[in-house]
């Protein structure tokens, strides 16, 4: 077993293969590896971020919900207050209106009574006169007794 030119041939072949590997094989494969590594790292980071965002959003949603509940309770309170206020107002108004109507009716009734009284007075006067005429059987000077009859009628 002695060394011969094979050693030179092998060295040259080795150099060529190493050069080829350096030039065409190593860079694309390691680049692909590095890129995938980066992709995975990015993906993991994105997942982390998404998880964080989700937590944040959930907290926010809970806060909003709580706030909405408080607000809605407030609104309901206010609405209740307003409703009772309206009812009170309506009651007041109705009472006023009723009183006003009652007062109007009273006035009308009084007026009616007055008028009836006038009419009655006039009729009583007429009846009294005609009664008196009949009693006296004589005609009485209506104009001369007008004053007397009116006085009589107003006493009724």
């Amino acid at each position, binding site marked *: 077993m002695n060394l011969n*030119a094979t050693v030179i041939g092998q060295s040259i072949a080795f150099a060529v293969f190493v050069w080829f*590997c350096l030039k065409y094989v190593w860079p694309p494969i390691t680049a692909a590896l590095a890129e995938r590594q980066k992709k995975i790292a990015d993906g993991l980071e994105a997942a982390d971020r998404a998880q964080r965002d989700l937590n944040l959003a959930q907290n926010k949603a809970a806060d909003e919900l709580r706030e909405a509940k408080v607000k809605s309770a407030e609104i309901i309170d206010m609405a209740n207050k307003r409703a009772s206020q309206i009812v009170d107002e309506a009651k007041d108004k109705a009472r006023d209106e009723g009183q006003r109507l009652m007062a109007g009716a009273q006035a009308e009734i009084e007026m009616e009574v007055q008028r009836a009284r006038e009419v009655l007075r006039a009729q009583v006067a007429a009846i009294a006169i005609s009664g008196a005429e009949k009693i006296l059987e004589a005609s009485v000077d209506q104009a001369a007794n007008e004053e007397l009859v009116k006085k009589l009628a107003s006493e009724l």
Partner: protein
Amino acid sequence: MPEYESGTEYIAHHLGFLKYGQKADGSWGIAHTMEEANAMGFWSIHLDSMFMSLLLGVIFMGVFYFVSRKATSGIPGGLQNAVEFIVEMVQTTVKSTFFARNELIGPLALTIFCWIFMMNLMDLVPVDWIPLTAAFIAQDSHLYFKAVPTTDLNITAGFAISVFFLIIFFSIKIKGFGGFLGEFAFHPFGKWALPLNLIMEVPSFLAKPVSLALRLYGNLFAGEMIFMVIALVGLFQLPLHFAWAVFHILIITLQAYLFMMLTIVYLNQAHTEPEAH
């Protein structure tokens, strides 16, 4: 197992190379006998080792190139996944062992690991298959053909010497010529023990490529030798072969990994200053 007069002859034949060079009578050609082969000088070449080495190298590079052309950072397919697994393993090893910045180390380590692994893998192919195929193609039943390139010291030495030159090149590039020599002269005992330093450092430096080449060669040569011996025992070779092959899977992977690892370590040493003493 083809016809041989003895087991010794069978093994001896399996150890012969398809060697091209200048014969004793001055003509150039392929050696047909061991004597002819041994008579050839340095300027001869093992056609079988070179052929298998280049074939495996081209297969490995072809597969990796094919994958790298279509490499995507999306979901990888099966082949891309396998290739990425290997590349990532090499990359992790380089990152954890090599602390300077050098674009060459990754591809270098990958090439060493995969190529040596492919060559070692030929050891798991039953010992006669490839030589008999080669003999059939060449129509020469006595053709010498060695199927496992890493059982050829020339191939392992080719790797080791290349790595050795890279060590020297990067040492000088990073530390300067003086710095490179200074490592031998003033290390580990300081400048007052210069001769002692040289005696300690120079052999250990020269031992690097020798140990790289011999470790790989020795392991694979011994492994193949055992396969050959197993092939001689007749029908019982099947379970034995299987058992040794299973064990050998570990060895071939380990040796490929070890070669890569030591290369990275040596080159890392070349890139870093030794601690001051």
